[in-house]
């Protein structure tokens, strides 16, 4: 036990010294020409898996979402397509502007949240649980309709205070390792954390298929991964902190092409 404690103390000490070195590198906004999608940091094999629809496993969720789009749900007996019609036209570019300001709640809402609002109010159905196959499938199907289109999040001036709060969260140190998101993704992108390349944290392809997960996951799941990595307590799914962070990250990735459903290692 004693030995374990000493080892833990050494680890925390080393992390402290490392974070001091990192804090010297100032976090600054990257010019658009230097922004790179996580796609660019992947191996050629992973890139090939993503770009070919016949090998991209995210497409399994997309075809499931396509079926759910026209499936009737809830007491209303209505499907998504009963109101929205053909998603290929009605949902084109929609996911690329999320999170958006939702007037009824006076705060931003992300795509998954918006799907569940529709389910509750329009379909009178129970909301789909976070990270459930159905919710990811619908988000992936809607997201795919924006593939290749530039991200446009953050147009609405009412989003500004939430984006600022997201940025503050991004720059705030947290967890036992006392790291902020920016310590890795602004100050040290392109370098390695163990064997993995640190990307610039542009969420251009969510929900995405992560090989490590062997499945599809949302940006919230990915944020929870990083929080657990710095030994911070992750916020519960759906908490406003995630939405603000998503809003900040998507606004930061404005103009980059949407890749949903992306593949990542």
């Amino acid at each position, binding site marked *: 036990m004693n030995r374990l404690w000493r080892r833990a103390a050494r680890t925390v000490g080393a992390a402290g010294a490392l974070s001091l070195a990192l804090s010297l590198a100032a976090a600054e906004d990257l010019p658009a020409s230097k922004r790179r999608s996580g796609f660019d940091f992947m191996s050629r094999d992973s890139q090939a898996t993503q770009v070919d629809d*016949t*090998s991209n496993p995210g*497409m*399994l969720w997309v*075809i499931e979402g396509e079926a759910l789009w026209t499936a009737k749900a809830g007491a209303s007996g209505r499907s998504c397509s009963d109101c929205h019609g053909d998603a290929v036209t009605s949902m084109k570019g929609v996911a690329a502007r999320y999170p958006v300001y939702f007037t009824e709640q006076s705060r931003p809402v992300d795509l998954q949240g918006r799907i569940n609002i529709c389910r509750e109010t329009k379909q009178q159905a129970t909301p789909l649980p976070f990270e459930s196959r159905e919710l990811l499938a619908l988000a992936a199907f809607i997201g795919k309709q924006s593939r290749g289109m530039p991200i446009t999040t953050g147009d609405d001036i009412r989003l500004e205070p939430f984006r600022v709060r997201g940025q503050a969260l991004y720059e705030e140190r947290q967890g036992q390792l006392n790291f902020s998101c920016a310590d890795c993704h602004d100050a040290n992108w392109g370098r390695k954390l163990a064997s993995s390349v640190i990307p610039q944290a542009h969420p251009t392809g969510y929900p995405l298929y992560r090989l490590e997960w*062997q*499945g599809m996951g949302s940006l919230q799941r990915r944020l929870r991964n990083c929080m657990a990595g710095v030994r911070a307590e992750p916020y519960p799914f759906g908490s406003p902190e995630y939405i603000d962070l998503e809003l900040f990250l998507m606004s930061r990735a404005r103009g980059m092409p949407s890749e949903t459903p992306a593949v990542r290692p």
Partner: protein
Amino acid sequence: MARALINVPAKAKRGDIIEIKALISHPMETGYRTGADGALVPRDIINRFLCTYNGEEIFSADLFPAIAANPFISFTTTATQSGRIAFRWIDDQGRAQLETAEITVE
């Protein structure tokens, strides 16, 4: 029924080498992992995959627990005649699935 994406070229010239791809939605549970209760999660993998071209077997594979979830299987064959390419696979729970694709050979 589990979802799958089967890709066979719709048309080919006689004698052409064609690529056939199958992406199957399956958890491929190894049987070595424990669940939240500490008990082993029973193994559930696709253990056999078979492809026939107008009834003749052209490819088969035995799968093992080291294969990741949602397996992607790709192979080539020679386009000989128009007809049906059928894919059949079976998992540890005995669930069998059949998918077919048509090909026109000129």
